[in-house]
């Protein structure tokens, strides 16, 4: 029988083979943990954006559009950020199982733990206003970003379905109307004869509002309910 151990030992000596340094493996291990951490953080960014998207939408108006709640949810899902969240969770999982003992944990355990961490961090980021700022940056810097997501603007800029949003340009055209410029820069004359005002609002120039009602023609809208426009710095600044 061939003496493999002796042969290998001779080869090690002859070719002066040395063990790789401890530092090499430690660095590699730290790098994997670093990538895992980064993935979790990026996942939390994605989650904070999902939360932001959901919170900025009005969930009590789906019946007004004649849609089911499920259809509204389906239309409103922030797919872009959901894809990013799944992607970052995948990268986090991949890195975790490549840590020294990562293989000992089940797929579902790693996934759920990563998701919980990203969720908690993401929620904290959302309440710190991070997601709103991030969205503003994306709106300004990323071309076509607004086409990729369903925003509050998309939800309310449906005049034919009785939803409108914009800025009051001129109050007191007459006692029961004002002039409004919507987010597509179109002018409307809004009739407020029988309007319910939600929130402590006064008809004043420059006020951003959401309107529920009926589109009379291309430039006239009758408001049934008016709400303040909350959040969305890109419109209020």
């Amino acid at each position, binding site marked *: 029988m*061939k003496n*493999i*151990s*002796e*042969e*290998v*030992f001779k*080869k*090690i*000596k002859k070719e002066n*083979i*040395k*063990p*790789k*340094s*401890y530092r*090499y*493996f430690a660095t590699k291990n730290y790098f994997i943990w670093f990538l895992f951490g980064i993935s979790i953080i990026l996942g939390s960014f994605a989650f904070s954006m999902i939360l932001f998207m959901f919170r900025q939408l009005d969930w009590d108006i789906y019946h007004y559009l004649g849609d089911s709640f499920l259809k509204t949810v389906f239309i409103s899902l922030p797919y872009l950020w959901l894809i990013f969240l799944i992607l970052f969770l995948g990268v986090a999982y991949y890195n975790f*199982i490549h840590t*020294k003992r990562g*293989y*000992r*944990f*089940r797929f579902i355990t790693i996934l759920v733990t990563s998701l919980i961490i990203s969720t908690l961090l993401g929620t904290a980021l959302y309440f710190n206003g991070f997601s709103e700022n991030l969205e503003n940056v994306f709106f300004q810097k990323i071309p076509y970003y607004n086409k990729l997501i369903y925003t509050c603007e998309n939800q309310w800029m449906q005049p034919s379905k009785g939803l409108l949003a914009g800025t009051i340009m001129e109050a007191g055209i007459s006692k029961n109307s004002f002039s409004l410029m919507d987010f597509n820069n179109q002018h409307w004359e809004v009739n407020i004869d029988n309007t319910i005002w939600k929130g402590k609002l006064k008809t004043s120039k420059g006020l951003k509002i959401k309107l529920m009602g009926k589109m009379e023609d291309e430039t006239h809208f009758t408001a049934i309910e008016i709400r303040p426009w909350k959040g969305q710095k890109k419109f209020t600044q």
Partner: protein
Amino acid sequence: MVVTIKECIDKTDEQLVLLTLKNQEYYLCLMKRYESELLNYIMKISNGNKQDAEDILQETFIKAYQNLNDFNLSLKFSNWIFRITHNATISAFRKKKIYSQAISWEEKDLDSILQSTLDVENTNIQKLSYEHVLEIINRLPLKYKEILILKFIEDKDYRAISDILHKPMGTIATLLNRAKKAIIRELKKEGIDL
């Protein structure tokens, strides 16, 4: 300083790893400890070609030596070296694209698997020839074969198999269960009444 086998006898694998990192002569002791065990393991999960198995073992020992600083002393060295051997074997056979088709088994190894899987008192099973059982086991996917080898022939526990195959213990238990069911299914396909 030349190290004799005598000097290694009372030392654990983990102690020998630490000593090897200071003096490479100790590595010979580690290799000698595992040479035959690993060679058998390679031959069982490969196609049984001894020459190929020896080449893989050489590669394994060199790789293990180069990665010695990556060995975590809180784990068992045997699991670690089995892991490297397993990877090297799978990698070698993938490169050659000749996945294991025939495994060299001893009769007692096959008995060991059957005993653990089935009722050995079953007379229908006892009538089965060695070749017939081997053929059935060879039909199993590699993921089942390797787990059967580690559990019933190498006599590794779930933790050790988990460390060698880099899978969670729950997955190991599931795979083992599926491997047993696969053997039973194959036997039933052959018309053997269980």
